[in-house]
Structures are given as structure tokens and as C-alpha cells.
């Protein structure tokens, strides 16, 4: 079942057409990887979906209704959660405090017990490997921080979660951890949009790959039936390019 679908989304910044006639569909329990070169419009797409920029034209359909997303709060209310690349965590606060930041239970007499219990539930749900929720986020590794950021986005029971380059700054083991997490999100029936540069990650967890090139759709592929070379060809816009030539040279 399709949760979120975009039709004809366009966005211009001054003279630059950042996005033109974009189409994208995300179903519940599906991981859609959005790939593209620098300047392909990935970040703009994320910002439109998370309510940072409204689109100039086009329709967004969420759970069968046409919706508008004028602000981050509106996105949150709809059930679209975004985990930005820089995570936006407060290093001086502990995991529970970060998870509930801005949406604490009982504002005038904080209910730490309830918040801690709920935090453990969330982290269990993600099978997250965080030893203690009472350590400052500064004490956590990159993968654990990513986990905290994802767990926080799950607090509002979202239907769609957008991950912006979730593995960009991570090591091998931590990347694997985050990919496990993405699979867990899929198992929990969420629609996941994963922005990525990394073909290996895309092949590992995504169900479909949507390629953007210069602000336009450049193909949607089923991951199982497409090779990394084809995706790269779609990203760069040609089969005859420096990457393909290198690959051929390697084969011959």
C-alpha cells in the first residue's frame, strides 16, 4: 500500500530549477533509496518532504489524501519524520533527555521514569545496542548517535521516515548496525526514504532505487534486478562515462 506519493513536484531557487516534475512512491514496509550526484536535488527533496521548503508546484499524497507540508511541525503531525545528516543532538544531554527534547512528559514536573521506560521500549524496538540511556550523547559512538536520532524520530509514531545520508560518517561496523536498523524500520511497517551515496548500502537494504539527475527523475529500479553499474549509469546520465570506462578496463 502506498503511503506517500509525489507527483509533478517542482522547485526553483531563483533561476535554478532544483527539482522538475519529480515523482516518487513509498509504500508501507518499503525502503526507497534516493540516489543522485551532487546537485541532483536530493537535499531539496528531503527539505520539501520535511516541511523546510514548500514546493512550487505538484501534489503530495499522504495516505490517500492530498496534503501540504508548510512547516516542519506540519510534517511531524502528518507522520513524516526526518533524520538529518547532522543528527541535531545535544551532546551535553543524556539519551532520554535527547529523545524527549521538546516533547517532555509532564512539563512542570518532568516524569523521568515514564520517559526512561518509553526510551527503552523504543530502543528495544530497534534492537539498539546502547548500554545505558543515562550517559550523555557525547559518550556514544557515531552509530549509536544515529540510533538515538532515529529512535527520536519514531517518538511521534510516524508512517514515513526519511534518513539523510545515515551512513555517511560511519565506520564499517557502525554502518552495518545502521543498516540493520533500517531493516528493523521496514519490518515495523514504516515507509523509509533513504538518501545515500553508497551503492553497497543501497544494494544491501533498499527495495527500490529512485535515481535523480539534475533535478529530474532518471529512472526507478527494482534493486534485485539492477546492477550497481546500471544505477551509476543512471546517476551520471550516460553509459559512456569515466566510471563505466574504468569498469570495462577492469573487466578486459
Amino acid at each position: 500500500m502506498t503511503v506517500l506519493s509525489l507527483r509533478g513536484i517542482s522547485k526553483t531557487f531563483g533561476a535554478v530549477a532544483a527539482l522538475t516534475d519529480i515523482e516518487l512512491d513509498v509504500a508501507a514496509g518499503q525502503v526507497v533509496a534516493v540516489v543522485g550526484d551532487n546537485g541532483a536535488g536530493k537535499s531539496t527533496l528531503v527539505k520539501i518532504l520535511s516541511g523546510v521548503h514548500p514546493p512550487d508546484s505538484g501534489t503530495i499524497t499522504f495516505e490517500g489524501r492530498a496534503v501540504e507540508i508548510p512547516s516542519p511541525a506540519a510534517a511531524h503531525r502528518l507522520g513524516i519524520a526526518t533524520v538529518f545528516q547532522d543528527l541535531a543532538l545535544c551532546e551535553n544531554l543524556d539519551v532520554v533527555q535527547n529523545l524527549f527534547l521538546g516533547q517532555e512528559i509532564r512539563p512542570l514536573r518532568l516524569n523521568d521514569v515514564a520517559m526512561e521506560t518509553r526510551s527503552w521500549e523504543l530502543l528495544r524496538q530497534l534492537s539498539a545496542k546502547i548500554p545505558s540511556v543515562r550517559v550523555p550523547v557525547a559518550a556514544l559512538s557515531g552509530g549509536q548517535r544515529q540510533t538515538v536520532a532515529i529512535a527520536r524520530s519514531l517518538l511521534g509514531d510516524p508512517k514515513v521516515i526519511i534518513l539523510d545520508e545515515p551512513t555517511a560518517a560511519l565506520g564499517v561496523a557502525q554502518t552495518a548496525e545502521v543498516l540493520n536498523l533500517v531493516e528493523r524500520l521496514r519490518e515495523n511497517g514504516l515507509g523509509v526514504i533513504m538518501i545515500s551515496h553508497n551503492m553497497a548500502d543501497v544494494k544491501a537494504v533498499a527495495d527500490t532505487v529512485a535515481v535523480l539527475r539534475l533535478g529530474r527523475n532518471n529512472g526507478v529500479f527494482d534493486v534485485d534486478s539492477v546492477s550497481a553499474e546500471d544505477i551509476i549509469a543512471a546517476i551520471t546520465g550516460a553509459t559512456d562515462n569515466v566510471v563505466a570506462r574504468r569498469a570495462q578496463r577492469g573487466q578486459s
Partner: protein
Amino acid sequence: MTTVATDRQDERLRHREGLRGALAGVVERARGGDLGVIPVVVGLIVIWSVFQILNPIFLSSANLVNLTLESAAVGVIALGIVCVLLVGQIDLSVGSVSGLSGAVLAVLFVGEGLPVWLAIAAAVLMGAAVGWIYGQLFNRFGVPSFVITLAGLLAFLGLQLYVLGTKGSINLPFDSGLVNFAQLDFVPAWLSYTLAVVAAAGLFVTGYLHARERRRAGLSARGVPVLALRSVALLAVLAFVVWYLGQTRGVGWMFVFFVALVLIMHYLLSRTKWGRAVYAVGGNVEAARRAGINVRAVYTSVFVLCSTFAAVGGILAAARLAAANQSSGAGDVNLNAIAAAVIGGTSLFGGRGTAFGALLGIIVIQSISSGLTLLNLDSSIRFVVTGAVLLLAVIVDSVSRRSRTSHGRA
């Protein structure tokens, strides 16, 4: 029976149970650069020992009573400084604002003959208005707070001189309730002991209820022995303080008022959504904004709070002196308030510190000041020593911050 508490199931966690575990935890945190109150307490012991050796009157009950009364005014100002430092900003004008507040109070109360409560309310409101202006300037124009408040330092000093007029000094009548409150009103012995018992019992009860709630929710919790020991220790300390100060005049109401403010601020900072927002803004403004916190409102509230506390401190100082004059709030008031906050463990980098820091810090500052006065050293040396102690506190802050980073406790 043992089901492992929800937060203790990870096999990598080292388990600490009971009293010994609690102690071991403290030692380990300190090694990791999370020094807490240790440097202040050690510093205080050193300072007190040195001054006691140099002048045996220093630790006498009479002098300590004086010390508590002297620390209340600047302590209240330091409490406000803790709040602005927590969001990573600074207010350099608290001295001037406190002086202006004293002048406004004196002019309205003595000059205009208004009732004292009205004069106090006006002075406090004036302080709040100053903070609100700072907040607006900071939010709208994005000017660094140290520049805004530096401008305020000079402007409000000028306003203070203007309000006081040509006389330059206004005495408050000695028989007014305000002056009595600051100079002569002491808590009766029975009430002091009762308050000490109430505080210890309160600590135990809140701790016990919290532990019970945690246990019910399947989380680990402090055991009764730890809680009891903590309360008994607090009771012993408070009872000793009350007894020792009671040898002469006792505990002043003004000091109790200051401690009450500290407790209220502690609650607001640690147990409310607003307090969480303050720490979050100090830790990472952008993250706080994305979490839906109204960052501008937090900044404004903190500036208002700081200036209001400065005004209250100014009123207490005027009451203590029974006068407001041109040098009220001048000299080292500013620096003492900031030094007290920093010495009390509030980080200049934002996001770290507690309300109790103001209490501990001001006692250190006031001890130095009192000790040097007893040695008949004049203010020139006092300035140098206070400056050196402030520098030391800032160095401890920076070093422990670095250590925290390397031990993953930033």
C-alpha cells in the same frame, strides 16, 4: 527472584550496587573529568585553613554569620549569571543593574515616600524590563550578548547616577522592615533545627518515592541505605551549621531567602521542560530549534531572569548597607557574581552547571573577601586574589571539559 532492571540488561554495563557502588561511581566520574563539586569543596577547605591559620577569628561563629549575610546579595546575582551561562551567553551588566535597582528603591521609598513593597516591586520590574530589552536586542539583531550587556553596564551606571541625583547617596531608615530583614532578623533556633530536619526528611522522602516509582517501572533504583545515608549526612551538616552559627547570632533570614531561591532555581532547571530547554540551547542551539523549542523565548526568559535576580540582589545589598549610593553595584560586584557562578562549576561554554553552583561559588568568593579584610589587606589585594581565583576556576573548567571529551562525558 532476580529480574534484571530494564536499564541494567546490557552485558557491557558494570554493575554497581549499594553504598560501595555509589562511592565507586563518584570516584570514577571525577577521574573522567566530571568533577562536580569536588574542586569547590577542596578549594573551600584550603581557603578556610589558610585564613584560619593567619587569623583565628576567621572561622569564628560571628565571622561566619557575617559571611552568610554578606554572600546573600551577590549570591542572588550569581544565580542569575548561572542561568545566562547555561545558555552559553553572559551578562556583564548585573553590577550596574543591581546598583540601579538599589537607587530606584531608595528614591521611591525614601525620596517619594512610597510604601516599601511598592518600591521593591518597581525595582524588580525595572530589572525584568532591562532583561527583556537585552533579550529583544539579542534575538532581533543577533548582537553578541557580551557587547549588549557591556553597553548596558555603562548605560545603567549612568542611569543610576542620574536617579541618585546630586546627593549621590540615600540612606534607608533603620527602622524599616527591609533593613531589619537584612541586618537584624535571624531565624529562631528551634525553627532553624526544624528547617534542617524538614530538609533532610524531604530529601529522603522525595528520593524514596522516586526510587519506588522507578522500581515499579522495572528500572534500577537507589537502595534505601544509600538514600538514608544521604539524608543523615545532610541533616548532620545542616544541624552543625545551625548549631555553630547559633553560637552567636544564628542564621539570617536573608541567607535563608537566598538558599530558598537556589532551591527554586534548582527545581526549575532540573525538573521542568523550561530547564531542559535551557540546557539544550546551551548544548546545541540548532538541535534545540529543530526539536521544536522556542529558542528566542528561552533566551529572553533567561536574560529577564538574570536581570531580575540582579535587581533583587541590588535591593538586598541596599538593605544590608541601609543605603544606596553611587558606588552600589560598582567595583567588584560584577566580577564576583560571574566568578561565583564559574567557581561553582558553571561552564562558560554553556550547557553545564547547577543552581547550587551559585551557592558554593559565592561562599568561596566571600570567604576570600572576608579573610583578606580580616588581615587588614585593602581592596587592591582583594581584587588581585579574586581575579586569580576566577582564572583558576576557568582553567579547571577548560581542563575538565577536555578531560570529559576524552572520557566521553562532555
